[in-house]
């Protein structure tokens, strides 16, 4: 087998965090190569390095045996390396034909001319797409076809797909796979990133697994089993920072029951319960609908009006149109993206904390009281050990850990009875991680119903009294942290 594309010790870091760590990689001509790994394992960054989206910081890329200078995706595309993203890069308001010839129009461009050329070209690929259709009217699979056709038209010898099947229906997925087979028979080498193990085993010739920015395994798909792949994906030393739990708290009163809840295609008929005095861990990969489910419970999103299922909170059915009444009832959601929807960046710590009190209507006076704000800030910066240079610092100037503590403080001030932490330690320094974990345990000890959403398995294992696993928009399995292995849980999440 000849290699068409090779990476030698390819390295890339963002702000000092190594995302891709000295990866060696070989892509054979005419093969389909699946790239697997957990969220944050470095798959996307690695493939973007190959496609020239990012310049590498170390190592080199060999293309057809010669070193390749990465100078932007357009130049790479001209040389024959194309990347197809999840969000397609087509122009929705133009026809398929116009999109195919985008950037390669002649000075006098006749619509009829390119439509005929596009028709002939699509037929030669055996793609059934109408060249006069507007891209905005096409489904996800057909859009992907157009994108692939564009890559093939530019004579791409390597096509990289970033999670191509994540948004497809089963029907569209079958179309996509037959497309991959046709490309392979034309001699195109393909890399595709996926979370679905079955797909990878079924479709690809070889499989590479990445973990923590390193390549941990590359083998022929025929020699691999799902079990071995999962082990390679999870197989970090468990765990320097956290220890898994030895005993769990018993379930208290049932605080929340979710039955058959659906929202579009993101959440599909999910059902589960949450109990007081316990930490319920919700594990799932990106796209498993865990954040969306949490936001439905907290009133940020609305579940489907028809056949949307039922949610009961403290024994009575609820359907919140906005987060306001949910907060008033004691349901508080702590966001995974604190900069986007967590804190008020131009305001001080005190103002942020006080905002929580005001929004829940728990302030003592009918008007804004600076004295109340100051004493509140004193109590909570002390309680949560928020460290800053002077209390007047704007939140945006704090470290990630202290920002997260402000966001958590703001939520706790609202006196929740059910609190949902979405990725509570994302972008948080190690010291603060331990403090936040201790705080979460304390809240459960105090009798709150606590939900922790995380895609970091060791965190889930260290915190939870029960572990729920979400996949493709629903909770699919429940584990006890004392007798489930991390392989079992990961298997349920990717299966």
């Amino acid at each position, binding site marked *: 087998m000849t290699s068409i594309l090779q990476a030698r010790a390819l390295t890339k870091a963002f702000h000092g965090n190594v995302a891709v760590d000295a990866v060696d990689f070989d892509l054979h001509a005419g093969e389909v190569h699946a790239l697997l790994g957990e969220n944050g394992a470095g798959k996307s960054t690695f493939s973007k390095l190959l496609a020239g989206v990012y310049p590498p910081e170390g190592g080199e890329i060999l293309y057809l045996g010669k070193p390749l200078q990465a100078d932007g995706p357009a130049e790479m595309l001209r040389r024959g390396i194309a990347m197809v993203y999840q969000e397609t890069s087509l122009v929705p308001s133009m026809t398929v034909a116009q999109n195919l010839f985008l950037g390669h129009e002649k000075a006098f461009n006749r619509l009829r001319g390119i439509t005929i050329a596009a028709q002939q070209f699509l037929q030669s690929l055996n793609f059934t797409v109408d060249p006069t259709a507007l891209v905005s009217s096409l489904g996800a699979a057909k859009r992907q076809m157009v994108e692939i056709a564009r890559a093939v038209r530019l004579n791409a010898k390597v096509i990289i797909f970033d999670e191509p099947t994540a948004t497809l229906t089963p029907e569209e997925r079958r179309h996509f796979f037959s497309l991959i087979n046709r490309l392979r028979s034309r001699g195109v080498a393909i890399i595709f990133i996926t979370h679905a193990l079955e797909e990878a085993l079924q479709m690809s010739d070889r499989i590479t697994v990445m973990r923590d920015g390193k390549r941990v395994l590359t083998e022929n798909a025929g020699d691999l089993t799902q079990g071995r792949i999962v082990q390679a994906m999870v197989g970090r030393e468990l765990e320097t920072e956290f220890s898994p739990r030895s005993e769990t708290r018993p379930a208290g009163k049932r605080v929340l029951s979710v039955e058959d809840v659906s929202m579009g295609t993101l959440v599909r008929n999910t059902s589960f319960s949450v109990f007081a005095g316990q930490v319920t861990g919700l594990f799932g990969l990106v796209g498993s609908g865990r954040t969306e489910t949490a936001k439905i419970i*907290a009133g*940020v999103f609305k579940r489907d009006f028809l056949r949307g299922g039922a949610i009961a909170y403290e024994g009575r059915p609820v359907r919140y149109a*906005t*987060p*306001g009444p*949910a*907060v*008033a009832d004691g349901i*508080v*959601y702590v*966001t995974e993206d604190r*900069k*986007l*929807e*967590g*804190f*008020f*960046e*131009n*305001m001080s710590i005190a103002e942020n904390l006080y*905002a*929580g009190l*005001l*929004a*829940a209507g728990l*302030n003592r006076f*009918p*008007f*804004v009281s600076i004295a109340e704000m100051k004493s509140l800030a004193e109590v909570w910066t002390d309680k949560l050990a928020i460290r800053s240079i002077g209390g007047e610092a*704007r939140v*945006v*100037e704090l470290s990630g850990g202290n920002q997260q503590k402000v966001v958590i403080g*703001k*939520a706790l001030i*609202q006196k929740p009875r059910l609190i949902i932490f979405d990725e509570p330690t994302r972008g948080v320094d190690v010291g603060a991680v331990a403090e936040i974990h201790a705080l979460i345990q304390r809240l459960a000890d105090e009798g709150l119903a606590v939900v922790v959403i995380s895609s970091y398995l060791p965190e889930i294992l260290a915190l939870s009294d029960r572990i729920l696993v979400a996949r493709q928009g629903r909770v699919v399995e429940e584990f006890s942290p004392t007798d489930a292995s991390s392989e079992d849980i990961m298997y349920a999440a990717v299966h």
Partner: protein
Amino acid sequence: MPSNRPLLRIFTQETIVLLMAVVLFAGFAVALDGFTAPANLLNIVRSVSVLGILAAGMGIVVIGRGIDLSMVSIMVVTVAIQLQLLQAGWSLWSATAIVAVITVGLGLMNGFMVAYAGVSALFATLASSAFVFGFVRSQILTQDVIYIPETAGSLLWLGKARLFDLPLDVIVFLAVVLIALVLLRWSRPGRFLYLMGDNFQAARTMGIPVRPLIVASFVASAVLAWLAGIASAVSLQSMNTRLVNSALLYDVVLVVVIGGIGLSGGKGGMRNVVVGALLIGILLNGMTILNLPNIHQNLIKALILLGAIILDGQLNPRDEQTSQQGDI
């Protein structure tokens, strides 16, 4: 970060603009005869007051990360209808009551379009401005300038009334600023408005009723527009509907931006409105005494606005996140 350096912290846009106003005032006082005469000083304050009331309303909306381009239209239309009703023989109270309802209705319309129909504030108010004025001018009003009728003696009297030697429109401006200042600083909805302007998504997630708040801010700006219209009508004894086609709206935005209420929301307050209005008032007055033609006045105002916006960008650098969410 500039705010960590104490020296730079003093030079906020507010203090720079205040400094500019003082320098400009001193310059005009030395260079222009009669600039510092008491009558002219009163003129400055008076010319500022209608602008200032409008800017207070605009400021409230902009703090919540919106913009209301229909203010001048609402100001003209509501007062014109009120005067027309008076001419038709309605009593002052009944005309005022019906116009109050219309004003609140217009504010609600703007607010609902932005908060519930999800139209961007820029386009919603631009369209409602053209629609409201076009409809009323073509269907209800018969002439461009509507005078206060002789029968409405109390309105005519208000125009001449003085409190502590100050004309009424100045008193109204001061009262509006004072009330808005107190509400923005010390009321819950006032604080919510800042939170919403700073980070809409965070405000919503933590349980603040953001959509009613948007509606309320547009109702407030509509009511203030009406008030500004009355202040202007009683001092001029009439309402000229051609005001809609003037640069007044532009001046209002100028006052708000130059005063330092960032268009990205969540910043500034009534102090900035006062400072901005003072600078513009002094500038307009000086240019009028100098007898500069209108085109040149507009040129100078445009240059100052551009300078203020560039300065704002330097002093309050927007990060990636804010620019993604859009500054309007």
